[in-house]
């Protein structure tokens, strides 16, 4: 068994110092050590997006990120997106549009959408679909997911962007 190394991880603004074996991923540390189970394990291959977190604001796969490499980086997980017990606007929109079915993929989708909207507050439907390219949902068919995110892109005084079936 490999030796554990001390590592300080900044997760949702709080810095935690842990002892972690170098082969362990951020996903494992989140779920097993920190009991933050909102980040899901799906494929463990970087194909499904269930494990997605933000590192310095960009979506990455926590299943492929070794925890020891993330010292000093700002990690955001699904547990960190709500503010004052209020759902994040992306979460609210997904609920309002009936976009959530089994929900397994949703933490990844919420974080992808948050990263997109933080960078580009008014994405087109096409930009939303491209941004979701790393997130697999096996229930919804994506249409309502895209509609929900697009509803947040509408600019005051402007009509809604064209529909999702482009």
């Amino acid at each position, binding site marked *: 068994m*490999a*030796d554990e*190394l001390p590592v300080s991880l900044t997760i949702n603004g709080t810095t935690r110092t842990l002892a972690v*074996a*170098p*082969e362990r*991923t951020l996903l494992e540390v989140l779920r097993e050590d920190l009991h933050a189970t909102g980040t899901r394990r799906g494929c*463990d*291959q*970087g194909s499904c*997006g269930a494990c*997605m977190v933000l590192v310095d604001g*960009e*979506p*990455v*796969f926590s*299943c*492929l*990120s*070794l925890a*020891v*490499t993330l010292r000093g980086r700002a990690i955001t997980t699904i547990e960190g997106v709500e503010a004052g017990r209020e759902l994040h606007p992306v979460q609210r929109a997904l609920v309002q549009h009936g976009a959530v079915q089994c929900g397994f993929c949703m933490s990844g989708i919420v974080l*992808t959408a948050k990263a997109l909207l933080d960078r580009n507050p008014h994405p087109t439907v096409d930009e939303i679909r*491209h*941004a979701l*390219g*790393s997130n697999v949902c096996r229930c919804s068919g994506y249409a309502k997911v895209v509609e929900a995110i697009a509803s947040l892109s509408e600019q005051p005084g402007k009509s809604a962007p064209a529909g999702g079936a482009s």
Partner: protein
Amino acid sequence: MRYAEPETVEEGVSLLAATEDARCLAGGASLVAMMHAGQPSPTLLVSLHRIPELSAMVEADDGIWLGAMVRHRTVASDARLRGAMEVVRSAAAQLAHPAIRNMATIGGSVGLADPNTEIPGALVAASAQAEVAGPGGRRLVPVESLFVDRFRTSLVRGELVTRIFLPRGTAGAVGHHLRLSRVSGDYPTVSISLVLAMEGDTCRQARVVVGSCGPVPLHVAAADKRLVGTRLGEQDVAEAGRLLAQAAAPVDDVRGSAEYRRMLIPRLLGRALSLAREHTHG
């Protein structure tokens, strides 16, 4: 598994040289996935992410240097990568899907030497050179000399890729990367990377590389030669495509049969040449 975070290239080289079965960790997108898939972990993982020079992107008169740790996301969105260098920008923009592009690096793609991804072929089409650091110092080699087999490079123990040089190429040259895949985000079934320069309607320069059709990116000088001096007519493209298809060594897999891949080569070549020509000013 032991783990190290060197802060200079020289420190990294001595760690890699001193340990049998040590491996570099770049973005992790492939190496960690392979560890999950049951491949044995290296005895020592040398993470390159704390070596500042490896993340630099430097513009020179005759081209652009991409640090090995520059991520595909950065390559994909850098408007300085135009003309012939556009083939690499375009390949990086189409590689896998967004979160992989946020993690995976140009040096990682070279070290992985996966003949089924976008980057090796695009770098060969761009006539890229790789700077390799090792115990004896640094050397600059044509990138194709690194690719010796599927997932195998000519790098020896103690060596690592530090940066990649993309030459600007001849004035007016354009690069283009075209992939055909079952769905966006999948590995390409076949890809074509090319650099093209036109003089009026005549092809002045062509460098065509086929991906996903053999153990290393496929470059056939005779196919380039067949295109140069022509007007890229149907016959010219078909014959150059035939030369490439004959030299290809594709495999049968879930993305397509070897026969299907051979059939795709000339057709994708024609399409890639047309798309590239739209961007030439010859």
